[in-house]
């Protein structure tokens, strides 16, 4: 991608995303970490817009920022006696070391590979995504709806109190 606009956009978005991801890792307050996570999601949506995937970018904002972040915030709200200090566990250092090694390996592989890229990017619109989802990938589409129903029912069942279960039990 050439030009001032995409270059500036790419560096701005990567700074935003990576700094907020660092904020999730390093902040000392769980709620601040959740807010940094929301900013990371918005940064990732910015990447999708750079890559001409506007529908996926807006779907990302609706689902991740609008729904999943709200889920995480509710979970934080409903666990008042849990530690809100976003501390590290005992095995934190080996985990971070592993992540750094993996980052080094991936960066080396990405730099070293001879990527076969197209000259002009394909024109992918929302309607082509819709056709693909209902034509070539209709089966995963239907299975995703079954999965969502199962997750919905499962999540409700997991958090029911025994009184609520008794109310709805078959007599």
């Amino acid at each position, binding site marked *: 991608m050439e030009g001032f606009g995409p270059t500036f956009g790419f560096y701005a978005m990567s700074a935003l995303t990576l700094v907020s991801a660092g904020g999730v890792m390093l902040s000392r307050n769980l709620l601040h970490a959740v807010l940094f996570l929301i900013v990371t999601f918005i940064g990732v949506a910015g990447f999708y817009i750079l890559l001409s995937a506007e529908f996926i970018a807006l779907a990302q904002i609706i689902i991740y920022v609008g729904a999943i972040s709200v889920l995480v915030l509710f979970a934080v709200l409903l666990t008042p006696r849990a530690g809100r200090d976003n501390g590290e566990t005992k095995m934190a250092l080996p985990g971070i070391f592993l992540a750094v090694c993996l980052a080094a390996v*991936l960066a080396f592989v990405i730099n070293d590979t001879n990527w076969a890229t197209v000259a002009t990017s394909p024109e992918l619109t929302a309607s082509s995504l819709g056709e693909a989802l209902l034509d070539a990938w209709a089966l995963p589409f239907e299975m995703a709806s079954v999965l969502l129903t199962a997750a919905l029912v499962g999540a409700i069942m997991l958090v029911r109190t025994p009184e609520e279960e008794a109310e709805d039990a078959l007599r």
Partner: protein
Amino acid sequence: MSIGIEHFLIVGAILFCIGLAVALSKRNAIGVLMGVELMLNAVNITLITFSHFAVSDRPIAGHAFVAFSITVAAAEAAVALALAMSVYKNRETVDVDRINLLKS
């Protein structure tokens, strides 16, 4: 200077590794879930990058895959948080260091 495929892939890799570090090192179960969501987002960036840049006879596959990945991430976040709520009701903590009843 122009932005190529390697730039996006490196950003995806770094975001994945930050998510891995968060998932492996946080003490609160909700913190671990945040790391998992970061990893899923990094994978989605990589998929859209390949859909945009790579030689393929059906480039919409990347977008479709990401649509399903976002769906599954939402379902998994809901179930994981319901599990965390359930554990909190019984143990009054969501600290992964202290949920160790199965430890020998």
